[in-house]
């Protein structure tokens, strides 16, 4: 049987990489931002200003655009590889390598965004929990799901 946790992790990654908001019911909308600062929402794919004007990762100046593009490509890689590593027919050795890479990359993303969140809230550390977005928790969830998939793979061996 396919490792569902890996596939779910991959789908969440794609959602984070492409989507800004998911409406659930009327005014209840899930925003997938990583964090917000001065009413600007920071997403994996770009930023949204307080006046609802959005900028993609390529509209930033050099080299920020390359850095943002790298993060985006890393997330796409994580999503693809966790989906590709999860089917039953996949080669266990290769899947293990991909899960390890995914865990490493997700941890790097979490650390980098974590540092950004701390730096933007240095004056009031307590505000971190107000400014942190669901996107950050979803990246952490991808990490956990990949760890679960890896442990299932090891148990299967």
């Amino acid at each position, binding site marked *: 049987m396919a490792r569902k946790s890996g596939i779910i992790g991959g789908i969440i990654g794609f959602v984070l990489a*492409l989507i800004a*908001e998911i*409406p659930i019911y009327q005014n209840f909308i899930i925003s997938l931002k990583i964090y917000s600062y001065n009413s600007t929402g920071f997403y994996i794919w*770009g930023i*949204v200003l307080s006046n609802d004007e*959005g900028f*993609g990762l390529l509209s930033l100046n050099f080299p920020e655009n390359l850095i943002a593009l790298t993060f985006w490509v890393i997330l796409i890689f994580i999503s*693809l590889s966790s989906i590709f590593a999860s089917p039953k027919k996949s080669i266990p050795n290769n899947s293990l390598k991909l899960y390890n890479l995914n865990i490493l990359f997700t941890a790097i993303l979490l650390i980098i965004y974590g540092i950004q969140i701390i730096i933007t809230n240095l004056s009031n550390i307590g505000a971190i929990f107000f400014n942190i977005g669901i996107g950050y928790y979803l990246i952490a969830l991808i990490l956990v799901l990949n760890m679960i998939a890896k442990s299932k793979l090891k148990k299967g061996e």
Partner: protein
Amino acid sequence: MNKFAFLSGMLTLLLLFFQFIPLGIIFGSNGAISNWMLTYFGLTNPFMYYYSTISLEMMSVGDFQVFLWGIINNGTLYTWSEIHFVTFLFLFCLSLLSIITAFIASGKENKLGRRMNNFNLAFIGVIFAYFLIGIPIYSNFIIGIELGYFGIFYYLNFGFYILLLDLILAIISRIKHPMN
């Protein structure tokens, strides 16, 4: 499953049928698809509106944006079949064949899969070579500007680099095929 062939097929599919990749999608009520869904199905709150895009144009010269499926000039779309038949054959038809062969190659891990992999690599190679050599030759007909053989490199855009990635994936899928 040959994953590299699958990815190569997906990238060609993106380049052939899309103008851009939407980023920051909102499932809101302002988009064209939303209005269409509302008009024909009475559904509110569906797809889609987006904040930003990653353009898939192969190159842009002046007011012309060149894609794998055609060009956009001052906001008007023209397919290759309307503009230039040779380019239509090399860019559009070969891309279509490349997508089909890539998906067959991704599913079949036998001799047929290997053959399809070879076809996919050959098609993408020809598309790549035609873009670098053929487009400068016919640039006067297509966009009304004569491009030198190296002049084209000034105008390349993201789509071209995605095609390059596509070519690399096709080569890797050829090398990594189980029949080899």
